[in-house]
């Protein structure tokens, strides 16, 4: 019986995260859920938000975009379009990106621009939320 979970986070561009952890908390579409080892096999969607990872008694945090997760007894695989560790988030950059997205939404945009700006906005907001919550 395994005592740890293997957490893997993959994006189309790279495998962002791959480590053995004790517990994972995910932002599921129907509310937050905590996954311990020996969880029943489950597939579900995740919303954009924050993942908390407990490893060796310490909590680590990551910001992820929306995606899907496959859970087995010893595996948690998250497939998403964005994943970034809380420590790697550059708050100034994310804030700047958010501001830029908000500004652009004020202008007259075509449909295709709105779509991409909205996606960018969601990413920067998620990053900011994760970063700011860590400080208070």
């Amino acid at each position, binding site marked *: 019986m395994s005592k740890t979970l293997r957490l893997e986070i993959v994006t189309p561009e790279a495998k962002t995260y791959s480590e053995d952890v004790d517990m994972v908390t995910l932002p599921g579409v129907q509310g937050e859920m905590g996954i311990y080892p020996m969880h029943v096999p489950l597939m579900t969607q995740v919303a954009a938000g924050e993942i908390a990872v407990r490893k060796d008694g310490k909590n680590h945090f990551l910001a992820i975009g929306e995606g899907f997760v*496959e859970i087995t007894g010893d595996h948690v695989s998250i*497939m998403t379009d964005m994943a970034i560790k809380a420590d790697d988030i550059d708050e100034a950059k994310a804030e700047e990106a958010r501001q830029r997205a908000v500004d652009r939404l004020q202008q007259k945009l075509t449909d295709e621009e709105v779509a991409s700006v909205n996606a960018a906005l969601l990413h920067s907001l998620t990053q900011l939320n994760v970063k700011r919550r860590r400080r208070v």
Partner: protein
Amino acid sequence: MPSTRDIRRRIKSVKNTAQITKAMQMVAASKMRKAQQAALSGRPYVVLMNSVLGQVSAQAGDFSHPLIEKRTIKKRALIVISSDKGLAGALNSNLLREVAKTDPNTTVYIAAGRKGAQFLSRTKRNLAGEFTYKDAPQFSEARAISKFAQDLFLKGDVDQVDIAFTNYINTLTQKPETRTLMPIGEIKALDADLQSDNADSKLSTSSVEYLFEPSASSVLGALLPHYLNYQVYQVLLEAKASEHSARMVAMKNATDNAKQLIKDLTLDYNKIRQASITKELLEITSAAMSMG
């Protein structure tokens, strides 16, 4: 007969050209490797996507979704993935010849890449949207294109969405190809490798019984847009790899031609030089003989 100085000047200018084409060849080669690398680094994502797809489509049973629904085709959308820059041999002209065959009255076009956009506006076709993508395609760029096309399809503006791009077969061969994106026919396993042909890959299902939250069909429904996004991303990578390898080959040919030209010119130059030396010698000896 050209003077030796003219020939020297030409050799110099051809040499400069050869240097530039050689440099472009090197740059294209390294960019091509990067595009292949990018495709490979997406492999874990593809593996996971395939496993989730296999599970949910097996469990979802009788499933219907607006993205799968077949309608009578009154209007089509065609996404044209071309390159931004030329100097890549016949790459863009081959692709655009395929695009030119489509009926402009029943087709709306979505351009990605400047060459395609220029062609479509020059031939006065109905351009619905124009996108750009970088030398190293980002997933977000693919998502923007895919989202736009999905919106057109779901609103009912178009009944089918095709994508035209240059398929990367290997370094020497690239083939223009048109694939149907929407409606999604059979859900096929994705493949991260650019060179392999993924026409008949099947989804595998493991024996583990999964639970689904909220339900298999709703997970599948949410997964389909992502499946399309990834397909567009992969097409962008294919197109980029094709562009760079086509450019690499074109520039290699140009460099070889320039080298051949330099060789021929050098031969001419030496001939002329020798001829003038012989002439001078003749003049000197005949002058000496007439003096004596």
